[in-house]
């Protein structure tokens, strides 16, 4: 689907997020090894790779849940690479630095809650994390905690029932309703999130992240466990988010059909190392990608039907055909 020419990699010129020489070590395990990549502003970027490749770990580092052992992670508001600002923040030991051109954030120095609040990088989780005892509406209101907190005068004004807080609350409810509408869950707004079927929970989690008005939205396997119809709806939703809200999307995905169809940029990870980086067409034909997808513990992984399907989709060949190579 990508209209990019093979040689022009737009994401290098206007990256909203860069990961630079990042490593993450868990005891003896080097889960991420010197990983660098860019996420282009307004792109849908897919991060793929076999199970255990370290994709979720990358997300956890980017969103501050893990502190990478080494490396720099930069989020940029405004446009362009803003090299000077990044250098300034890095050498001055600052967590962020704003200039006329925008602002840069060194995510590896920021705690998780600041990353979503200030750097505007939001995420969802591989194993859905909703507030299941709260209603859909409440879930989306919690996501607007920080602006609402300010509007409530850090609670004091709220207790006194200030008009300005009432207005802010109304606006927050409207925003929640907007997103509930766009993920098709508006009729269930007052139900407990835990009562939703699996596919709806996935979409609700995306809606909740969108209530943060993020610049970068990181989705950890959003299509996992969805049926083909739901999966197609998800694609529409992601496109809508990108087109209407200009949000850049970084997405971990197993379903190669989805990846190839909607991504502008694909990064392939294997054993914590980047083995390919380019647009969908480039990655598809990269021999290392083919090998990585074939090379994984044949017996264990190939027998998983999804993986076999992925393989066929990536390589356009059956296992047997690929094995002959």
């Amino acid at each position, binding site marked *: 689907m990508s209209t990019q020419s093979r040689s022009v990699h737009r994401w290098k010129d206007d990256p909203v997020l860069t990961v630079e020489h990042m490593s993450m070590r868990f005891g003896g395990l080097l889960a991420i090894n010197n990983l660098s990549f860019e996420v282009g502003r307004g792109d849908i970027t897919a991060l793929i790779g076999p199970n255990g490749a370290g994709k979720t770990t990358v997300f956890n580092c980017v*969103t*501050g*849940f893990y502190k990478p052992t080494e490396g720099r992670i930069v989020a940029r508001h405004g446009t362009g690479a803003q090299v000077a600002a990044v250098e300034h923040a890095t050498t001055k030991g600052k967590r962020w630095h704003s200039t006329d051109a925008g602002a840069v954030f060194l995510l590896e120095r920021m705690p*998780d*809650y*600041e990353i*979503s*609040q200030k750097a505007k990088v*939001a*995420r969802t*989780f591989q194993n859905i*994390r*909703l*507030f*299941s*005892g*709260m*209603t859909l*509406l*409440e879930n989306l*209101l*919690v*996501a*607007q*905690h*920080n602006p*609402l*907190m300010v509007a*409530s005068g850090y*609670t004091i004004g*709220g*207790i006194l029932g200030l008009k300005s807080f009432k207005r802010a609350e109304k606006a927050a*409810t409207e925003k*929640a*309703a907007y997103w*509930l509408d766009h993920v098709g869950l*508006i009729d269930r*707004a*007052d*139900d*407990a*999130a*835990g*009562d939703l079927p699996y596919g709806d929970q996935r979409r609700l989690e995306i809606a*909740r*992240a969108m209530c*943060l008005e993020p610049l970068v939205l990181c989705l950890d396997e959003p299509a996992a466990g969805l049926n083909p119809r739901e999966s197609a709806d998800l694609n529409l939703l992601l496109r809508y988010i990108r087109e209407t809200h200009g949000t850049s999307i970084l997405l971990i995905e197993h379903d190669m059909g989805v990846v190839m169809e909607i991504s502008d940029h694909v990064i392939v990870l294997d054993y914590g190392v980047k083995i390919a980086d380019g647009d969908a067409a480039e990655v598809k034909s990269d021999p290392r990608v083919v090998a990585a997808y074939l090379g994984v513990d044949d017996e264990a992984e190939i027998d998983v039907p999804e993986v076999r399907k992925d393989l066929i989709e990536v390589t356009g060949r059956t296992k047997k055909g690929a094995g002959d190579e």
Partner: protein
Amino acid sequence: MAGTGQVPAGTTPVAPKNADVPQTRMARALRESLIAGALAAILGFFFLALRTDIVTGGLNVTTRWGLWLTAIAIVFAGRMALNLFWFDRDWGSGKPARKTIVAALPSGKTVGRVALLFALVLPFLFMALFPNKDRQFIDLSILIMTYIMLGWGLNIVVGLAGLLDLGYVAFYAVGAYSFGLSAHYLGLGFWTALPMAGLLAATWGLILGFPVLRLRGDYLAIVTLAFGEMIRIVLINWNDFTGGPNGISGIPKPTFFGLEIGRGEGSFGDVFGIPYDPIHRFVFLYYIILVLALLTNFVTMRLRRLPIGRAWEALREDEIACRSLGINTRNTKLSAFSIGAMFAGFAGSFFATRQGFISPESFTFLESAIILAIVVLGGLGSQIGIVIASVVMVGGIELLRNLNFLKQVFGPSFEPTEFRMLIFGLAMVVIMVWKPRGLVSTREPSATLKEKKLIKADQVAQGEGH
């Protein structure tokens, strides 16, 4: 409350849930009742059947076969009833038509209003209906109301934010001592000391919460317990300042806008031309604690609908998700901890003024446990559940003092109040088996788009350490 969920399983170690066992219901019930009865007989033999008294020249053994046999019969019958009417019910099919109290009752709002109206007229009701015992009853109502307030305060920490705090009584003590000490050393009155007590307790909540709240679950529970004990031990040992184990006495009574409730010139009765009656003091104290408790309730209900309260509940549901949504979980926890502590501080200074005397003995772990039990039994997060649980628990314990007819059954040496803790524990077990999520286990959403729907307990998380 790790393990409360296991209570039903724990009490039925011999009940096979296996349908393959070819046994009729009755036979199984009978067998298990016999086993339970035999166990009761063995265990009870030394406690109930034999009684030793120290007399000059040795021990004097008396036997109490009646008591022993009664106990065995109760255990046998109870087990039988449980087997026939409880354990054999179909547990497997998820959530059967388990009727909840709330479902049977009118809406929470109506119940709340009726309860409020009742609370408002209660002292006059007592004075009209029980002219001889009114003082005793109003005093008991004051006690219950204090626990309701404490329960509501702790509910912010445990019920809403999901932080298991076993040292809540520490803040109650801080409140009581801050009034006691400021009255003793500075001569402050109740109304001046009240806000100060709340503030001090909140500050202590922050100070203690800061290192403690980075812990999770059971660790948090243990450390809060330790902090609670530490405050008490400091109070005992800091003799010069706190009076040590002797405590502080002569704490002044509250005044009515500067008027003392008492006899003599310029007192309340004198000014308003009402002849003095000692009951006035009790009625006045009752209304003070009622107002304080209602304030706690009002603030909690308001907070629940504000971003801060919603963040507390979100924290109870999933802390990691909270952090991904930009919520500073440390500050959010601290706010819950210190606001909860503040209400304990208010209650503490009320306690000091009511008793006129405080000592570290009033602030043992048992108090924390009672308050926590009230919150858990009432249903985590439920305001009305806490009212019911306080009335039942505190009122129930008081009731035991009046069960003199039991002496006719078990003999004159039977002291019902000694069985307080036993009954306490039993009530706990029964409620946890019958309603593991407490009396009122549905959650009311804090915001609605179209139509308010109560949320079933099985969706609502209980927070850390449960």
